[in-house]
């Protein structure tokens, strides 16, 4: 095994682990279902537990093959053991109380919830993300310095280096986009024609029939994608923000590592929900439906809750870093736009995230302890949930896009060789969007039966967001105007992002206007709206950022040819996808349905949508191959590849371990392209 390529070794182990896990799960399921051998029933090959075990043990073995028993492998082992221990603990307590011990998914629901929580915490212990804090608590000293080993293994264990963490975030985000996208492709296939194709009522997997499976896949698609966005922006911000500020690292490196690593067990929990009966509420998890869904619902809640902590602490770190770690001379209005955007984003994730956590926690407790917050029979109020939920989940959409819009503003001047038009206005517009974004949440609830009179003020506040967003667009256009434009791959994605986000943005005001939203709400028009905003505001800029900063991280560039193929395959497909969604949505296509009325005549459009969905998938696959291939084999690019003024490009690539060997001082404006003799930063070793 020694000479085998680590990835291959990992994949082999994955297969072995998956099979072993499946067998163990099958056996446990059999044992429990037949009351521990009392009266044997048949083996349930498509039951939840074998599936879950094969996922968990397979993933663990994969990393074992890849890097051995350390870092993430140990984390996963701890998570599996922790989950079982937590579950058994509750089961033991239940035994002493004379309650039922086993459920359809091996453990009972409370046992799974505590197990899931203990497992996630155990992961953090196992991976080593809390070791230093433990030492602090014991009053022992810890080292401030980076001590990563060279080689790829450092990416699979706890590192305090923001650059490593940035890469870790980015890669996990890509992985989750692939998983979420794969789910989309599966349910898009079902939607290709009316009637049920393969997710039929006789379909059976993990205790779900086809209709439930559709809902689980669709809901998980939504949430996994959202988590992948949160990780993706964290990746970009982590890698780039300290470099832009001239800092050696983030303000709190340990917390930074913690924020990343806590997202990993969160992703495992989210995936586990599919294997524990799934859930059928959409990513919004409205009760009372979510109070009745299978155990998978709880795993989903728990996963989001844990991922929320990643987002909160990550946001905290970005704010503290931006406030405290700036290079000399970097006054607020000389900070790069991306820093402004990151701070605005982080303000939201720091505060509002708590409320999605709380709303989900309340439903969890309603299920576990019968606390009737949202149960009308007990005097509860289902609409309250929606307020708590959207208080986060609306501002969250600006969390998704602000860093992306920051990337657009950051890259445009480089590729048009002109200053960013109206720098101050663009900087302030990010804050404006973030702040107004806090006051608009109820526009998701115009039909919910909330207090009638609230609808009009929320309409005004929502429409107000168009103003600062418009400032960005107009400033971008003015920046491009009369520039000397080059269009390498990152610039293509920037331009694509602008146009796509414009489509998404402009489809926002009709939703925000109450009377038209009465028609548009919960249709594919909305689905089209948010795929546009998310792709334009996150996916396109994310790809742009990766193409742009990839050489900084690796010293090599990604293939231009395949980058352009990626762009030209993805963009037209995507236009067709979302315009098609909006078209059928207006005509009456509801969201979140596995099957649609054939008399409505949507079959052909849906078929096209499915095809374009696959084409986007292919383009992303091309990107992923390009990404990994270029790490080792890409063209060398160690200098200032894009001729940028930004400090990180003035030092050789890949970035040295402790960032800047010589500290720099800010002596000019960040985007003064075309001003002879001007410079943004001066390094300590220069005259």
């Amino acid at each position, binding site marked *: 095994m020694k000479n085998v390529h680590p990835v291959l070794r990992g994949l082999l182990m994955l297969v072995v682990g998956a099979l072993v896990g499946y067998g163990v799960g099958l056996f446990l399921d059999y044992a429990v279902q037949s009351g521990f051998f009392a009266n044997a029933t048949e083996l349930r090959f498509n039951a939840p537990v074998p599936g879950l075990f094969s996922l968990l043990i397979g993933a663990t073995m994969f990393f074992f093959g890849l890097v051995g028993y350390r870092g993430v492998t140990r984390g996963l082992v701890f998570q599996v053991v922790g989950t079982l221990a937590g579950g058994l603990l509750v089961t033991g307590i239940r035994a002493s109380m004379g309650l039922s011990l086993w459920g359809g998914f091996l453990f009972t629901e409370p046992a799974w919830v505590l197990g899931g929580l203990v497992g996630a915490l155990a992961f953090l212990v196992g991976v080593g993300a809390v070791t230093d804090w433990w030492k*602090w*608590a*014991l*009053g022992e000293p810890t080292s401030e310095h980076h001590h990563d080993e060279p080689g790829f293994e450092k990416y699979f264990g706890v590192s305090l280096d923001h650059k490593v963490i940035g890469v870790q975030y980015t890669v996990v985000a890509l992985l989750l986009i692939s998983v979420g996208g794969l789910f989309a492709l599966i349910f898009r296939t079902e939607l290709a024609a009316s009637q049920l194709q393969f997710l039929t009522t006789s379909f059976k997997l993990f205790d779900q029939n086809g209709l439930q499976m559709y809902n689980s896949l669709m809901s998980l698609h939504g949430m996994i994608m959202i988590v992948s966005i949160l990780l993706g922006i964290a990746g970009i911000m982590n890698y780039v923000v300290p470099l832009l500020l001239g800092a050696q690292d983030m*303000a*709190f490196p340990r*917390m930074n590592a913690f924020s990343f690593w806590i997202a990993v067990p969160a992703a495992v929990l989210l995936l586990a929900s599919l294997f524990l009966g799934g859930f059928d509420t959409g990513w919004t998890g409205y009760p009372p439906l979510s109070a009745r869904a299978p155990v998978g619902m709880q795993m989903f809640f728990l996963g989001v809750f844990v991922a929320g902590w990643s987002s*909160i602490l990550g946001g*905290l*770190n970005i*704010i*503290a870093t931006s*406030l*405290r*770690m700036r290079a000399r001379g970097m006054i607020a209005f000389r900070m790069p736009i991306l820093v402004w955007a990151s701070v605005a984003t982080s303000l939201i994730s*720091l*505060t*509002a*995230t*708590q*409320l999605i*956590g*709380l*709303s989900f926690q*309340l439903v969890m*407790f*309603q299920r576990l*302890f*019968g*606390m*009737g*917050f949202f149960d009308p029979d*007990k*005097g*509860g*109020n289902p609409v*309250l949930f929606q*307020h*708590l939920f959207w*208080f986060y989940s609306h501002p969250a959409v600006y969390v998704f896009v602000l860093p992306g819009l920051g990337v657009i503003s950051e890259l445009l001047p480089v590729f048009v060789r002109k200053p960013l038009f109206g720098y101050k206005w663009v900087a302030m517009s990010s804050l404006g969007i973030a702040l107004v974004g806090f006051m608009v949440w109820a526009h998701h609830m115009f039909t919910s039966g909330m207090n009638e009179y609230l609808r009009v003020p929320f309409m005004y506040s929502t429409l107000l967001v168009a103003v600062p967003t418009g400032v960005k667009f107009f400033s971008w256009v003015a920046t491009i105007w009369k520039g000397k434009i080059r269009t390498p791959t990152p610039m293509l994605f920037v331009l694509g992002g602008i146009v796509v986000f414009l489509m998404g943005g402009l489809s926002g005001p009709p939703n925000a206007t109450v009377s038209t939203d009465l028609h548009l709400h919960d249709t594919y028009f909305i689905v089209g709206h948010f795929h546009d905003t998310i792709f334009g505001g996150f996916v396109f800029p994310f790809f742009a950022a990766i193409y742009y900063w990839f050489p900084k991280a690796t010293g090599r560039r990604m293939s231009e040819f395949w980058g352009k193929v990626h762009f030209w395959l993805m963009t037209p497909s995507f236009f067709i996808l979302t315009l098609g969604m909006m078209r059928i949505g207006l005509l009456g296509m509801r969201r979140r349905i596995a099957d649609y009325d054939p008399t409505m005549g949507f079959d052909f459009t849906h078929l096209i949508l499915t095809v374009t969905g696959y084409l986007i998938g292919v383009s992303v696959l091309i990107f992923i191959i390009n990404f990994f291939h270029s790490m080792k084999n890409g063209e060398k690019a160690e200098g200032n590849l894009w001729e940028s003024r930004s400090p990180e490009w003035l030092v050789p690539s890949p970035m040295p371990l402790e960032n800047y060997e010589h500290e720099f001082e800010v002596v000019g404006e960040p985007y003064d392209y075309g001003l002879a003799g001007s410079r943004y930063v001066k390094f300590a070793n220069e005259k």
Partner: protein
Amino acid sequence: MSHTQDKSTIMRQGVLIFIYLGVLTALEFFIAIAFENVPLLVLVALVKGGLVLYYYMHVYRLNENDGSDPHSLAYKTGTNRLGLWLFLLSDAFVFGGLMVARVNLLGMTRPHLNQTLGLAVTAVLLISSFFMNRGETAMAHGDRKGFLLNTSITLVLALAFLLGVVAVEWPTASHERLTPASGVAGAVFYMMTGMHAFHVLTGVLFLIVILRNGARGVYTAEKHWAVEAAAVYWHFVDVVWIFFYPALYLIGAAIQLAA
């Protein structure tokens, strides 16, 4: 920094603030029974919270000039302080959300609870904040003995509060048929006190850590960030209760659950 001031002045100030807080709490209770006036109750709570925030938690320190050398201890402490306050800001949203849920679900009613117990645990928590303040001030002046003594008292009071809520108040309430599953009043009560108690528990762990390390001489007058952090966190838990107490015990008409 604060220890440039005379130690006894600060100690005296702590006592004074404590007396204010006590008087305000009594006033609050009186308002609630005599002529329940919600805006007034909110105002009193805000004043109390403000006092703790300013005098016990030293929020003004965020604004302190900590030099320009980013590698100095003072600068790093400043960064840590900012981080802690950001964390508290974030955490405040949880409690804010619970408060919103309480107002939405219960409106101008409240669960029927044992008033004596409520006042007792509130007093215990307030007093603990007082001792925490003394403990921290002592450490800031290098008085390790005073730190250990006062912090130990805080810890004892903290445990008393925790047990008071979880082991006395909860069983009492459930005796009167207020259980988590009995209806929204119960749900809100257990959720709010439970979430607060969870924070108290983490505060207790934090206190144990600084006591242990303090006893081993890890902290000095110059270098005791962990003590400051624990104190600020502990006062924050107190501030939360300053708002939760009237929300659960004082505002609205008590609903008696049918036997």
